[in-house]
């Protein structure tokens, strides 16, 4: 919300399909700074302009992203398995080395 020369200009986001609830401006006063009647008279309340409907994400936003492939875990498992193979080869060579 921006204040300029005694005029509060605000941008509202919402749905153009859902019906407005029967609320008065005073219903929104909770939590806001209290203003006097004279100050309130200085403000001009007007109905917000409703723009054309725009679908931003649509139903795709409701579908969870597929989990990314765990590259790090795959690499670490590969390293461990490769180490097992190398160690097995080392042990085999040591066991079959002619007695020193």
């Amino acid at each position, binding site marked *: 919300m921006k204040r300029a020369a005694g005029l509060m200009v605000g941008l509202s986001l919402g749905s153009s399909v859902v019906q407005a609830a029967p609320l008065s401006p005073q219903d929104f006063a909770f939590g806001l700074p209290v203003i006097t009647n004279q100050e309130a008279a200085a403000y001009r309340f007007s109905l917000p302009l409703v723009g054309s409907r725009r679908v931003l994400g649509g139903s795709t936003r409701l579908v969870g992203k597929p989990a990314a492939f765990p590259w*790090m*875990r795959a690499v*670490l498992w590969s390293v*461990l398995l490769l*180490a097992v193979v190398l*160690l097995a080869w*080392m*042990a085999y060579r040591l066991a079959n080395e002619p007695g*020193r």
Partner: protein
Amino acid sequence: LVSSEIHRRVLLRSAKVVALLQLPAMLGFAVHAALTLRHPSVDGGWLSWPLAFVGLSCIVFRHQGAARAPLANALNALSAWLFCALLSWEAAWAVNIAVAASDMWPGAAWAAIPALFLFLLPRLVTRVTWPFAINRDAYLFVAGVGIALYLGTWSLVTNAVSVGDTAPLPYVPVLNPLDLAQTFVLLILFGYWRFLRTVRSAGFARIDPRVPMPALAVLAFIWLNAILLRTLHQWFAVPFELEQLMASTLVQTSLSIFWAILALVTMLVATHKRYRLVWLVGAVLLAVVIAKLFLIDLSRTGSVERIVSFVGVGLLMLVVGYFSPLPPANETQQ
């Protein structure tokens, strides 16, 4: 290098001393780096350390004197240790950056580089003339033995303090970086000792041949027990504190059965290979298990654990008695 060249041209003895101070200077810089830097290649270390080692190699080549002399031994061994230490530090740092989830991965890197050096050392001293073959004793019996002692210490320390946090992977006994590094270290130490026994040298006479194999067996025994304790900690939430581990009935029962299995395997292998002394070691371990059953397990464990301990160990002793007779005395080899 300038001092070295001055010494060569004008035979100024003090210039040689200055040149030889490069290694102590490098050791000092390494200690300073260890205290102030995160890894050795930072702050231009990636360039300065290789250059320093090239310069050191030139100086050692010119001034080490006769092979087997104390100066040659010291220069070659210290430079090999410094090289291994810096490389291990850098590798551990890189692994820590790549896998920041646990300290087990960089811990394994601290052993991998020295173990790899020890793996390559027998090949280097037989195939590369300088500096390895000429200074064979310095590399095999000073640098190599020093690194072997470091690896033994690493094995003991990591087994004592590592709880088996293998994140981001789940803990699997043996199939984890620490246990694979321990296997690598033990195999390397075993292979290195077998190689040293073939070397006819004055350096070998300084090693008591009765020590290495029993020391390796003790390291392997401690490692196997550490695997068991880490597994009980990770899978059954037994706290990894000595007091709490020893107070756990699950740990005591597992140790009894595990030691009995180790004794069984040891005695079976000893019977197959006809190693009488090894068989006796297995028998002593079995006797320790029986003593533990009556002195510790019987008084502290609940009924189920007690039954499992006694039945399990009893069955294993039956197997030992049936399959593994004592090898005859005249074929004792080890």
